């Protein structure tokens, strides 16, 4: 499973999308476009990313743009993994 597939699996799990995340591309819009992504879901998502990828997110590192699209979130995860 590559990072993008892993990320989509986490999105599917946290947002209870029942497999719909499989069809997401890097251009798929997230924040504001997916109603399931409310504040509780954003927190669950950050936590799941930390636990599954093994990095720590500082609250200053994230803003709305981080969650704008799948691609933006993937860039963030890849950046954390490379750090």
């Amino acid at each position, binding site marked *: 499973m590559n990072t993008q597939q892993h990320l989509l699996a986490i999105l599917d799990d*946290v947002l*209870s999308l029942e497999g719909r995340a499989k069809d997401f591309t890097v251009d798929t819009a997230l924040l*504001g476009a997916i109603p*399931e992504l409310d*504040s*509780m*879901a954003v*927190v669950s998502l*950050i936590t*799941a990313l930390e636990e599954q990828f093994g990095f720590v997110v500082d609250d200053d590192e994230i803003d709305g743009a981080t969650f704008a699209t799948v691609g933006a979130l993937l860039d963030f995860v890849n950046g954390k993994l490379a750090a």
Partner: protein
Amino acid sequence: MAAAAPPTPSSTPFFLDDGAGGQRLCVHYPAVLAAAAAPRGQILLLPPFAEEMNKSRRMIALAARAFAAAGVEVLTIDLLGCGDSSGDFGDAAWTRWSDDVRLAVGWLDARALPGTDGAKPPLWLWGLRAGALLAPAAFDLALDRPLHLLLWQPVTAGKLQLQQFMRLRVAADLIGGQAKGAVQAMRDQLARGEPVEIAGYLLAPALAEGLESAQLKPSPRVRRVAWLELSPREDATLTPAATMAVEAWTAQGAEVRAAVCQGPSFWAATEIEEAPRLIEASLAALTADADFATRPVEAVSA
């Protein structure tokens, strides 16, 4: 001759009286036992924090019925200020929650019937997420019986749970496009002795402080630890933090069984979700005999 259908586990809600501290809503699931059989043990739920409890209620009820059907007596409790217990969330303090745990343990222990060997069966503490941090409240009680832990995706450092909870405000600000710095503002407010409101929960300084310093560390009082985690992946392995904790408990002398079950993070999911494999793995741990620790780490999947 057709076998009689097994009796269905029943559940009875009741209020456990805490004197001046009010009442705690509990649900009791008596063990379903064949005639003259001795109960396998008792188990007390240590609930997860804030909204995680609401998301978990269905899984807790499903698991409690399954445990009772397997001969384990179950008690679940809403802590002070939670669910239908007395008080508002803003009244809750970590020390009061620890008192609630001791109150519930006392209720169960007073009901415990001796097994065939004349000794009381084990008492399990069932810690879900941050509930695991409340287990130490029972470690120094004088109970003449083994104490075991069933841990579901346990939080072992309250600091992390508090950080995640405070992030709800960060996330709300982030969605609303507001400026950063919400966490520091909340910390300043708590430090001044004022409560902060997060996602509809009023967090009092006494709860924040207690949670932040709470930790679950290996204790010689605990004989068995069943450490169960969930992952959406079938081939998942224990997180590095869990692996270290399992090693530490083993070094302390506890028998440890650890597993990763495939299933959703139901305490955090958007919808109410079920993780049946987690219940299966829990049942296997609760009903294990001397072979408890012989399958140390395993993946439970389809």
